[in-house]
């Protein structure tokens, strides 16, 4: 017990140091840009936690981050790097949007599960393609998912500009590429009034996080999926069909991203529109790493990065630093976290640093 707590605290310590290192690096960019890093970071970190709006928006962003982060964690657990979150989100979103528009009269309790299932399936197929190519043709999944991202993005634009465009956009001649508004029976209600966007989709996300935890750690399926990632050769000897689990891991991973897109449509925008996914597919990678590739760990990590994303927008408004800076900070956080793995995972180094704290170890 005590050792476990020490391990968790140590993890948090290492992650905090990684984050601080990333911020220090980021301040070099701020200095080049001629901005006082303290002022910029103050706007980015303090502002979002000091208003209802900031907290609500952080939660709104944490929902897709949580879903994508969980999806990426699942893929990572079987040693697959899923960079295709962005495409999986978009295709999941557009499929879910089409489904929602197709079932206007169906009661909410039936409509929402159907829509989520559609988003999951389409995202899952998109992820599954990369999984299949890895398992059967040993195509590097980073490259295939990146290419699939570009393809998905164009399909997405094609669908919302053409077949799925809001008929009134044509009638009014405005031609904004977006679908019609989702029927009320298909959308998540807002949780607090006064114009805040936080919606009940967050409960769905939390339930899914817990379900995935049970799936991965309490079922044979999950055990096998993780075994494939940890010891593919041993898993093969044990009679586990490695190929099958690689593909399934990518299907689940893409499916989670598909749900992220779905929730954005029926929870936030109530339409499918351009720029729906604000690079959540990439931010989800950082969230997964920060959550130590664990569905429950991803929950606080997604809230933390939700704060960071809304913080970056607030910083842009306050001190005119482009919010793109947050992408580079996330990149640095990834670099810092994967670098610290030497410390966290290599028994030799871990013992050196933790040996004196651990009991009988």
């Amino acid at each position, binding site marked *: 017990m005590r050792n476990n707590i020490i391990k968790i605290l140590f993890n948090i310590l290492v992650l905090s140091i990684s984050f601080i290192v990333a911020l220090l690096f980021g301040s070099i*960019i701020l200095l*080049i*840009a001629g901005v006082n890093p303290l002022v910029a970071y103050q706007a980015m970190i303090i502002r979002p936690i000091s208003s209802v709006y900031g907290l609500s928006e952080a939660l709104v962003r944490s929902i897709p981050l949580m879903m994508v982060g969980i999806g990426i964690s699942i893929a990572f657990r079987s040693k697959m*790097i899923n*960079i295709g979150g962005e495409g999986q989100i978009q295709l999941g979103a557009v499929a879910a949007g089409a489904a929602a528009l197709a079932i206007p009269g169906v009661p909410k309790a039936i409509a929402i599960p159907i829509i989520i299932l559609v988003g999951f399936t389409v995202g899952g197929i998109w992820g599954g393609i990369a999984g299949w*190519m890895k398992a059967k*043709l*040993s*195509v*590097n999944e*980073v*490259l*295939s998912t*990146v*290419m*699939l991202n*570009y*393809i998905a993005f*164009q*399909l997405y*634009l*094609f669908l919302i500009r*053409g077949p799925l465009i809001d008929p009134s956009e044509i009638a009014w001649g405005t031609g904004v590429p977006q679908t019609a508004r989702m029927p009320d029976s298909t959308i998540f209600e807002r949780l607090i009034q006064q114009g805040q966007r936080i919606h009940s989709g967050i409960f769905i996300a939390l339930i899914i996080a817990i379900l995935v935890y049970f799936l991965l750690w309490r079922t044979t399926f999950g055990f096998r999926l993780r075994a494939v990632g940890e010891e593919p050769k041993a898993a093969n000897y044990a009679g586990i069909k490695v190929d099958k689990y690689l593909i399934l891991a990518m299907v689940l991973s893409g499916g989670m991203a598909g749900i992220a897109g779905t929730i954005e449509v029926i929870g936030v925008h109530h339409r499918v529109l351009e720029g729906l996914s604000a690079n959540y597919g*990439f931010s989800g*990678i950082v969230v997964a*790493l920060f959550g130590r590739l664990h569905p429950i760990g991803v929950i606080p990590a997604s809230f933390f990065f939700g704060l960071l994303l809304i913080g970056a927008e607030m910083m842009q408004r306050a001190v005119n*630093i*482009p919010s*793109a*800076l*947050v*992408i*580079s*900070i*996330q*990149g*640095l*956080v*990834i*670099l810092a976290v*994967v*670098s610290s*793995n*030497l410390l966290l995972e*290599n028994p*030799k180094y871990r013992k050196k640093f933790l040996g004196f704290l651990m009991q009988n170890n």
Partner: protein
Amino acid sequence: MAINEILNLILRILTVAIAVSAPYLFAAIGEMFSQKSGVLNLGVEGIMMLGAFVAFYFAWAYESILLGIILAVFVGALMGLLMSFVSVTLKAKQGISGIGLYMFGWGVAGTLFRLFIGGVEDIAGLPNLHLGFLSELPILGKLLFSHNILVYLAFLLVPISWYVLYKTSWGLKVRAVGSTPRAADTMGTNVNKIRYQCVILGSMLAALGGAYLSVAQANMFANDLVAGRGFIAVALVYFGRWKPFGILKGAMLFSIANGFQRWYQISGSTFPYEVTVIFPYLLIIIVLALSHEKFAEPTALTVPYDREFKG
């Protein structure tokens, strides 16, 4: 269509294909060195974005393309240093660290672009060379002797890198470090030093490829200028079986196929516009699926070297 028109068309497509394959050659040959030494650098895209931005900014603000290119290559070297420190010294998982590097380059280029340029600006761009009578030759003049200097450099890089890799002792060390690092170490080669050199060289070339896009091809910078070319370059390394001439073949085939479908779109086909944009990425997926044999891969690719760990 008359035979004359068809020949003209083929000539036009080939001329453009030669010019647009240059950035792929820079980036892919750079990545080849990196992978040959055992480091998978997936951050090429981000390095290209940063290289494209730096080159464009200095070419635009100080009106010197040369200065822009030099500084872009320098920034590329710094990115390579960062990548090798993380992946070689700190032994981070290379697939993920490459993604971190990609996001870092993307974010920095995007931030600085918005701060210092802000909108659509363009420059004159790198001029095409006029090689005297060679450029006047009927067909070959246009096809081969009217490009800008970086195109020639890119194509020269192919035989040079082949020579370096297969005919010099440094090249031998690179290959040894990427396939049998322990043996190379026993023979007195500093594994990590060679890997640092290769990753930094590869990143400098990637940045040069990015610079080409902004100061010699598009003559402008936009956030989506690189548009996946860095990842395509990595795919071309697989397609080319980690060999310079294989990469050349891949880059040319890819650029020609791309040129053809672009012409097809302009010539009044009824396909939606999005299909045009999808084509190169679809092509790369097919290429990856067809070039999947693993045996050509450097055996120590993505495996950090640890002297004390007997694995």
